[in-house]
Structure formats: structure tokens, C-alpha cells
């Protein structure tokens, strides 16, 4: 047996594709729309969510037997909020520039339905290790979509990737711009993120017919 049993590995791999939180469960869309104009912001958001969801799932799983069921949701919310504030403070201390670009979006993690959804659906009924894997898996699935959307939006919208000018210089008219290419400013607006997510869902479902609901 390897590092992970088959069942455990499925907890990581399932949310990457066939049970992806964004494209299949349609959760956490808001942040996918808000922050994906730049690839860098997408990656940081994905990592932050991975931290919050991984640790949060473990915490909830550890205290699942002592949480009073009446205030279950409030307890979950408190755990998320506390972890998010910690992420925000750490970013401010060690990645100040980034924390300024993310600003309101770090707070958005609190309202990310994926997190409350995983707490409620998985961590409350499973052990810490399994919950951790489930958290990481779902955050990865979320992150993959964020990175894909961020990649296309930054590339087509600004002609850069992670800030590097990959298509040439729009002012000096070098590279693709010399051939008459123009940046598509529409890609930088939120509606295009929704369209890109829609295209991903379309591609995914046309490749795997099992995902199509009647």
C-alpha cells in the first residue's frame, strides 16, 4: 500500500474532476468571478482557501462530537472566520503587496460556500485525517478552476502571465501586437469569468457523459 489507501486517494482526486466543487457542485462561484483577472491573485486565493479548508476541516472533525447541534453552524462560521483573519494577518505581515491586491477578497473566503459545505457534509461525520484530505482535495479542485480561469483572463485580457509580457509589448507593438492583436478588455470584467467557467463546464461534460443530468 502506498502513502494513501485507494479510498483516501479518491478523496483528493474526486474533487479535481468528477466532483469538482465549482463545475459540478456549482459552489464558490463568487470568488471565482471576483479575483481571477490575474493569475497571481488566483493562485494566492487558491492557496489561502486550501489552508482555511484543510485546517478548518480538521478542527471541525476533531470537535465534531462535542459541538452542540443547536449552534453547529455558528461554531463552523467562527472557525472559518478565525482562520481567515489569521490568513489575512499573515499575508499583511509577509506578503504585503499581495494582501493589498486581495484586500476584500480574503474576507470573501468566509462567505465561500465550499468551506461551510465541506464542514457540514464531510467533517462533521468523518475523522481528522480523512477530513484533511477532503479539504485539500476540494481546495485543489477549486484552485484548478481558478487557475484555468485566471490564466485565460490574464493572457487574453492583459497579454501577460503572472505579470510577464508573454504576447509582446502593446505600446511598442512587438510580438503578437505587431500583427495587429489587441488585448481584450472584456476579459478583465467579471462576466467573462462566468463565461470561461461555463466553457470549462461544457468541455468537462462533453468529455464525460456521466456528468450530464437529465
Amino acid at each position, binding site marked *: 500500500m502506498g502513502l494513501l489507501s485507494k479510498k483516501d486517494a479518491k478523496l483528493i482526486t474526486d474533487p479535481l474532476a468528477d466532483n469538482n466543487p465549482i463545475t459540478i457542485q456549482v459552489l464558490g462561484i463568487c470568488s471565482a468571478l471576483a479575483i481571477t*483577472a490575474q493569475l497571481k491573485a488566483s493562485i494566492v486565493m487558491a492557496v489561502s482557501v486550501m489552508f482555511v479548508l484543510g485546517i478548518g476541516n480538521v478542527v471541525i472533525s476533531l470537535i465534531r*462530537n*462535542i*459541538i*452542540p*447541534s*443547536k*449552534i453547529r453552524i*455558528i*461554531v463552523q462560521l*467562527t*472557525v472559518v472566520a*478565525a482562520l481567515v*483573519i*489569521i490568513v489575512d*494577518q*499573515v499575508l*499583511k*505581515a*509577509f506578503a*504585503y503587496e499581495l494582501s493589498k491586491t486581495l*484586500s*476584500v477578497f480574503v474576507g470573501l473566503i468566509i462567505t465561500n460556500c465550499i468551506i461551510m459545505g465541506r464542514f457540514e457534509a464531510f467533517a462533521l461525520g468523518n475523522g481528522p485525517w480523512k477530513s484533511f484530505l477532503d479539504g485539500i482535495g476540494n481546495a485543489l479542485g477549486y484552485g484548478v478552476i481558478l487557475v484555468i480561469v485566471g490564466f485565460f483572463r490574464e493572457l487574453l485580457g492583459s497579454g501577460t502571465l503572472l505579470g510577464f509580457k508573454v504576447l509582446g*509589448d502593446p*505600446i*511598442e507593438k512587438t510580438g503578437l501586437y505587431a500583427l495587429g492583436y489587441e488585448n481584450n478588455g472584456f476579459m*478583465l*470584467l467579471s462576466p467573462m469569468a462566468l463565461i470561461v467557467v461555463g466553457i470549462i463546464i461544457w468541455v468537462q461534460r462533453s468529455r464525460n457523459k456521466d456528468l450530464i443530468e437529465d
Partner: protein
Amino acid sequence: MSNKTDSNVYTVLFAIGMVVVVGALLAFTAASLKGTIGKNVELEKKQNILYAMGVNENDESSAVFVDKSEAPELFSKYITKQLVMQGGEVSEDDNAYLIDIKKAKEAAEGDASKRQLPIFVGEKDGKTFYIAPVYGKGLWDAIWGYVSMDENMVVQGAYFDHKGETPGLGANIKERFFMDDFIGEHLLDSSGNFKGIDVAKGNADPKNENKTDNEVDAIAGATITGNGVAAMLKSDLQLYKPFFDNLKNN
């Protein structure tokens, strides 16, 4: 769930315990990171001030600061004097850049003569720059910035920032196309009275070639943020007029 965790007493006790634990954890994090965060804010101020006087790493289109690690060294190299003006009195203070202008504004309670007004004197390529911080409000939240001027109150450079303006609209006040428009703009009118700079819609001077009209071009869809910038420049920079009058008379 067992009966134990369902009772009201248990629920209340659990809630209290949770608040104490989470509160302590957050307090510990905030206290231990406070120093590092404070340093970042200080460094950023230095970068902003340097940016306004033209010490930066700007490329063609984006606004880029000097590197964080070089900021303190460059700051002490280019900023020759830090002054604080209060009620007409000007004194030297090497920590003027630490003055929180929002707090200084509040502490003065509307009486401009009580307000601490920091001024940074910079020297670059034989030219003297006077850099003043400004603070105001945009559409959603605070906006602030640094404006560098020569002794005639002609803008030599500007940096603006914001807390929560709309991305793509009001947030563009920190883009170069907007900030660069201020360079060369006069703050005084032709007879030497303070006039400020309007962020004007339907400007008859879209390329901003006329630098003595006290107007720059507005950003489409960001009227309130633009007006906020104009109001901020007017209210804060006119307080520095006596300083510049003094400068000329001496």
C-alpha cells in the same frame, strides 16, 4: 448526538468557551504580527513618498515602486529634510513620515492651525521637491496620496491610493495614466491664489497640454472618486500655502 450536548447549559458553556479560545488565539496572532505589519506600512510610506518625487522603477505603463529592501536607503539619500508645520511654525522632525494624517486631522478637530502638517524636502538632480501627504474620501472608503511640488506649487509628481474604490473604475486613480496627468499642473491661479486642481469631465483639454488651467481629465465612470481626489487636493494642499509663501519671501 447524545443528550449531553443538546442541553441548554452545555450549549451556553460551549459557546463561552469557544469565544474565549478563539479570542485568545486571534489576540495572540495580532499581537505577534503587529511589528512586522507596522514595518510594512512604514516601508510603503517611504516607497510612496519616493514615488511622488520621481524615484521609482516605472516602466512604460505601470506604476512600480523602488524595491522594498532599497527603500530605507534611498529615502535617506533623496529626502534631505522632514518638516512638520503646525500653526505656522515649522520644525524639523526626522519621523515626520510616521505621522498618521488621518489621526492628525481628527485631533485638530477642524481647526487647521492645530493640525500637524508633514512636509518632506527632497533633492534629486539638483532640483528641490516639496512633498505633502493628502487624505480624503472617495466613493466607498478612504483615498490618500502624496503630491510633490516645486517652490511655485507646480506639481512634479503624484501618487494616489485607495482602500476600496471600484476595480476598473475609481480604483484607476492609482494607475499611471491618471497620476501622470497631474505632473506640471499648477495649484495656484495666475494671480498667485490657491486654486487646486479639478478632476474635470468634458475637459476642453483632453490631452492635458494646458498645464495652467488647474484641470486634469476625469476617469469615465468614476465621477465621485474623481471629485474626491479634487476635494482632497484642495482641502489639504491649501494648508501648505503659507509654507510656500514663506519659502519665497526668505
